């Protein structure tokens, strides 16, 4: 039977509609697939991580270790706070932690995370003791690592981190030092007097002006400290990330001229900054920026804490300088150092001998 033209066009229209529906269906599944893929990528944000490799030793006194550690810290601050990047700190190469260098890294990481939460990630240290200590100090947790690194090692558990805004030593530092049973009372009193004055110096002077580290952040405050008891010595380290002693000490005219000319001498490739000398001036001559007669005694208290001990060392790092004092068998000796890089702050480390444990 021959089909009429109307029938033909109806069948063609039906076929066309079927084809159209199939194409649309195929398109819909493709669109759905695309949408799903988009959703997945939305769930997994693309974060570009910038690597920052930690040095082998977190130590500050030797020139080489100071250069490497402070170089690492400055790079970290630049990447995280100036260039606003997300940084992955690679702790794998770290072999040994010394209290002074570790406190500087600890304080800088805490400061960065207070300004830009979540901007730091980490790769765990390869050395077990370092790995356990960094976790014990809470650095891994602060950088988003939720696992535990258990340890029952004394070298790890004896690190006690402290921090604060004001000099309220009543809360933790006071009782911790007073109850240190393996130290004579006069040494404990001298140490607490020194540590207390170091913290008062922070609240009184350290943050008067913005820190000169290029971040341009104003209105900062705070101090950080570690107390660590070892088998034969007690180590107390305190630090601030403020202006530093060389910037806050009152300078004699010739010292002011040298400080003024320092950028010029640096431009011609010579390092002749006066930081070590200025720390010594603050310590030995009780010089204060206020030039008030009743001020500037804080460093004297810090220094007096050492002769009260039978044996011990005191190191004051500030900006690019360091003042060192040691007591051994009643003899006291001093030294000062100048470094290439600035820590942009002040770090004071006491290392005092403890009496032997009685069993």
């Amino acid at each position, binding site marked *: 039977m021959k089909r009429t033209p109307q029938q033909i066009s109806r069948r063609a229209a039906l076929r066309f509609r079927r084809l159209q529906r199939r194409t649309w269906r195929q398109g819909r599944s493709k669109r759905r697939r695309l949408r799903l893929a988009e959703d997945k990528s939305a769930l997994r944000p693309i974060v570009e991580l910038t690597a920052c490799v930690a040095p082998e030793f977190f130590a500050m006194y030797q020139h080489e270790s100071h250069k490497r550690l402070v170089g690492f810290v400055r790079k970290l601050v630049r990447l995280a706070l100036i260039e606003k990047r997300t940084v992955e700190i690679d702790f794998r190469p770290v072999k040994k932690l010394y209290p002074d260098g570790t406190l500087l890294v600890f304080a800088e990481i805490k400061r960065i995370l207070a300004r830009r939460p979540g901007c730091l990630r980490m790769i765990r240290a390869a050395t077990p003791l370092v790995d356990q200590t960094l976790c014990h100090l809470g650095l891994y947790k602060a950088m988003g690592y939720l696992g535990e690194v258990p340890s029952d090692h004394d070298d790890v558990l004896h690190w006690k981190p402290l921090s604060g805004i*004001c*000099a*309220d*030593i*009543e809360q933790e*530092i*006071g*009782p911790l030092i*007073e109850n240190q049973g393996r130290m004579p009372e006069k040494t*404990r*009193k*001298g140490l*607490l*007097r020194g540590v*207390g*004055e170091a*913290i*008062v110096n922070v*609240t*009184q002077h350290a943050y008067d002006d913005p820190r000169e580290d290029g971040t341009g952040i104003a209105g900062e405050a705070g101090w950080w400290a570690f107390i660590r008891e070892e088998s034969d010595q007690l180590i107390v380290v305190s630090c601030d990330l403020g202006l530093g002693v060389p910037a806050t000490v009152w300078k004699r005219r010739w010292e002011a001229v040298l400080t003024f000319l320092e950028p010029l001498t640096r431009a011609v490739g010579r390092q002749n900054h006066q930081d070590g000398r200025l720390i010594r001036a603050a310590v030995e001559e009780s010089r204060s920026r206020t030039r008030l*007669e*009743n001020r500037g*005694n*804080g460093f*004297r*208290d810090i220094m007096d804490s050492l002769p009260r001990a039978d044996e011990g060392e005191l190191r004051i790092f500030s900006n690019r300088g360091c003042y060192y004092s040691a007591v051994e068998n009643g003899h006291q000796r001093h030294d000062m150092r100048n470094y290439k890089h600035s820590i942009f702050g002040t770090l004071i480390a006491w290392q005092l001998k403890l009496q032997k444990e009685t069993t």
Partner: protein
Amino acid sequence: MTAMTAHVVDMGKDFSRYPAGRTDKDGKFNGTAFRNAHLIPFVKSGKKVVVMLDTGFAYGSSFLEEAFGGLIRSGVDKKTATSLLELNTNDSALREEITRYLEAAKPVA
């Protein structure tokens, strides 16, 4: 007679075992707070003040200078301060240090 009229301050019990700093910026137990609460009201009214220092564990120079030197800066004359203040301590170096701050402080014009 003195015991009847004197204001006795036990540092550890009435203030803090770990006093530190000069002003409120430094924390709660600072030299200005101690001076204003336990020294000025009594000394200015001519009352003797006995400060029991041995119940405090350690004193920083900023606390001592602000608490005792600050007494002179806030208008109490040196003679009145030294006659009305009684420092009760077995630590002679601590007593000497406070006396030094009282003598060195200058009244604010």
